[in-house]
Structures are given as C-alpha cells and as structure tokens.
C-alpha cells in the first residue's frame, strides 16, 4: 500500500471507503510540495481543490480589523483543508500558508467529479460522512452555547470535565476534526477570560482602602475647631449623662 493510500484511508473525509475506491482516489491525487511561507491557498481565491497534509505543517490565516494577520489555526499531517471546495466553488474563506516544507496531497474538484461519475457508491459514502460530521458539529455547537451561558454567569465548573494537556492547553476529548478544534479553541478562550477575570479581582483587591492620612487630619481639625463643635461636644456629654441617669 502506498503512503498516499494510507493517508487517504486514515483521513476523516475518506474513512470507511472500500479499498477499491481508495485506490481509484489515489490515482486522482497529485503530490505537491510547498516551501516555508508559500501559500497553499489564498483568501478570496476561487477554491477548486482539497489538500490533505502528508508531512509538515500549515497555518490558516485571515485578516483582522487593522489589516494584520490573524492566525485561526494550525494543521499538521493527516488533516484536510479546503474540503468544502470539492462541492462548491465559493471563494476561500481563509488563506493557508506553509510553516515549513510541507507535502500535501491535492485533489482537484474536476478529478473528484469524474470519479463520482464512475462510482456512484462513492457519492453515498460522502453524504454519510458529511452528515455524520454535521451531526457531530451541531452537538458541539449546542454544548458551546450551553457553556457560553454558564461563562456569562461566571460558572466555570464544566471546565473540570476536560483534561489539560502537558502544555496547559485544553484538549477536548474528540476526534481531530474541526468541531474538536473549535472546542479546544473555545476552551483556551475560556481559560484566557478566566485568567483575566482573576487578574482583575486581584487588582481590585489591592486597589482598596487608600486613605490620605494628612487630608484626614486636616479635615478633622477643620470640623472640630469651630465653636459649634465645642458646644456640641459639651451638650452631647450632658445629654448622655441625663439619659443614663434615667435608666
């Protein structure tokens, strides 16, 4: 079995396809090499191919409000990018840039369609795979909504259900698909928010109780140096005496 065959067989997209179909697919893919900094795809370009990374790593980027680069994600061996472009021809929603020398398997839309014509069972398999994924994603979106509500109320208890990797980054207990990535991004966000919140609490604590003692004395002296005050003090004493006599 070729390296390409194994990659395809293990990728989330083509998992479960009969070997014969995978063999046919292997014939359609082109092995490509990208050098560090080279773009696999650019944001806004028409998408007409899918890539499965074989070796190396890439970053998925978009532009932030100030026009700077915003890294959405990193992907490595076995992961698929641009798979939606197999079905539609929408412009790419994000750019993908190689972080090092990267080898990827490219599957063009035309080649893919050709294969679908020859093997209708392949289409069915794809629909199954996509709908399973959709179901999976919506479960997690549902969870994310639930958790967001909890965070808004300051309840972080659900975080304890997930384990922390060695890097301290949260890793969700899911397959390495996009929903899982979203989830782990989500957890890292929560961690960040929580840390900032704790930090703020500390700031407020140390900010409390500052009394300017000089001003305190000055104001006290101003208030107590009047004739009214002296008379009041005397009177208060007398009243107190009177009242305690009555007891």
């Amino acid at each position: 079995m070729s390296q390409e065959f194994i990659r395809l067989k293990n990728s989330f997209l083509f998992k479960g396809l009969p070997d014969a179909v995978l063999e046919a697919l292997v014939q359609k893919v082109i092995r490509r090499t990208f050098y560090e900094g080279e773009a696999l795809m650019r944001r806004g370009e028409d998408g007409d191919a899918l890539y499965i990374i074989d070796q190396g790593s890439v970053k998925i980027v978009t532009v932030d409000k100030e026009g700077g680069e915003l890294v959405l994600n990193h992907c490595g061996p076995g992961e698929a990018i641009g798979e939606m472009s197999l079905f539609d021809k929408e412009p790419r929603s994000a750019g993908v840039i190689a972080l090092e020398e990267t080898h990827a398997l490219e599957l063009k839309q035309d080649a893919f369609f050709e294969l679908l014509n020859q093997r209708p069972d392949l289409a069915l398999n794809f629909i199954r795979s996509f709908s399973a994924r959709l179901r999976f994603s919506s479960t997690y979106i549902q969870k994310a909504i639930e958790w967001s509500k909890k965070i808004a109320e300051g309840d972080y208890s659900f975080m304890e259900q997930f384990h922390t990797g060695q890097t301290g980054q949260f890793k969700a207990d899911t397959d390495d698909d996009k929903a899982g990535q979203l989830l782990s991004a989500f957890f890292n966000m929560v961690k960040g928010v929580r840390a900032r919140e704790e930090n703020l609490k500390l700031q407020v604590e140390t900010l409390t109780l500052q009394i300017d003692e000089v001003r305190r004395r000055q104001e006290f002296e101003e208030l107590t140096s009047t004739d009214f005050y002296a008379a009041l003090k005397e009177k208060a004493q007398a009243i107190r005496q009177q009242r305690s006599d009555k007891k």
Partner: protein
Amino acid sequence: MGKIVSIHSFRGGTGKSNTTANLASQVAMTGKRVGVVDTDIQSPGIHVLFGLDETSMGKTLNDFLYGKCEIAEVAYPVGDYAAAAKESAPGRAQLAGKDLFLIPSSIRGREISRVLREGYDVGRLNEGFQTLIQNINLDYLFIDTHPGLNEETLLSIAISDILLLILRPDNQDFQGTAVTVDIARSLDVSNLLLMVNKAVPNKYTYENLKTQIETAYKAPLTGILPLSFDMADNASKDIFSLRYPDHDWSKELRKVAQAVMDTN
C-alpha cells in the same frame, strides 16, 4: 430607655434611606417599638418607602421644629395603614399591626427652602428625639440623615447610642468615612457599626474587604450588601427586605439588623 440609632454616610446616595427603612422594619417585625425620623430636611426621601406622599402627609417634623406642634403629632403609625397597600407594596403590608412610627420631614418646597434659608434650632431637634422615645415608649429610634457633616448631622451623631456608617467600596467613600469615624470617636459615640452597600458581586474577596475595613476603622463591619438591579428597581416603592426576604441584599441587611439589636 430606647436607643437612638443614626444611619449616616459621608457621601450621598449610599443607600442610607433604604437601609434605615429596612432596618427599622426588620426590628419592628420582631415586636419592638420603633421610630424613624427623617432628618434629611434638605432632601427628604424615606417617606416614600413607607408609602407617604404629599396628599397623605399632614404635619411634619418641620412644623415641630418651628414650634407649630408637638413631636408626637407628627409620628405616623405605619402599622395602622400598611395593610392597605397589600397589592402595591406587599413587603410593607407585612408591617400591619406592628409598632412602627415615621416622623417625616416636609416635602413642600416652601418649607424646605425655609430650612435652607433660616436653619433651625438643633437643640429642639434633640428635645424632639428624647420626647418621642419617652412618649411613644420606643425601643429604637432610627435617624435617617443628610450626607456630609453639617450641624444637624453632627448633632445626630453626637446623641446616638449606635452610629451605623454606610460606605461603598471605593476610595472616595473610604476617605470620607475615615474622617467621620474620627468625629464619632471624638464625640464619644459608644457603638460604631459599619456597613458596605452597593458592593459589586464577585468583584472583591469579601473577607479581604472586611479585614481591611475593620483594620482601618477599628469597628465591626456588620454586612456587605450587594449592588443589585432588583434593588435599584424596586427599593423605593416597597420595603425590599420584607418583599424579597431570600435576596442576598436582604440576607445581609438582616445581619446588620441583628448587630444593631445585639448592641447594648
């Protein structure tokens, strides 16, 4: 002999009137005989919490201060009319039959401006307090004050058995409260209690806040009452702690009431 409890804060808007009304109500609910005087003659407010308005208000503290009537004539028996407000103020309605008397100050513009213009005899105000306690046989007389340290406030502080100082957790209040504490000590007030109101929930460690405040002022912090939308929304229409007894604000308020009653 009844006790005089003054509720004061250095700055305005700390929640004195709401606290006074709720403390007085809580204490009255235990069966004690309680009076409440509004000495914030410049900007009266506590009458609203007890359901009095311009039409239902006859003679006031102002009439007494200018020698037009006896103090007992301006003591409104809240317990006698509270039941009528069952619908609009179900909290206050619970005071029906209790011995709670409100001595409001005038909300008529002309009478307020006279006070601002001419002032009044603070000695007479004090006589009024003493007479009230005796004539209607009060266990507690709560005094709602005007913020700051003007003459009538100094008098209320000087003659009180218990002074409750309210502060918000910010540095301006901390500073002003420090001066007020010094004044209270200089006037030999025997019981000084502190209360924090409008504390943003979860923003501070309450233990830490308590330690700092008690260390700085050397007086017990009797409650930390949270800033709350429900309170801002409802408080001035009804006695909040009676209407929403399970609310955090009410729970803390009851601690303060307990501290007042535990003070000898």
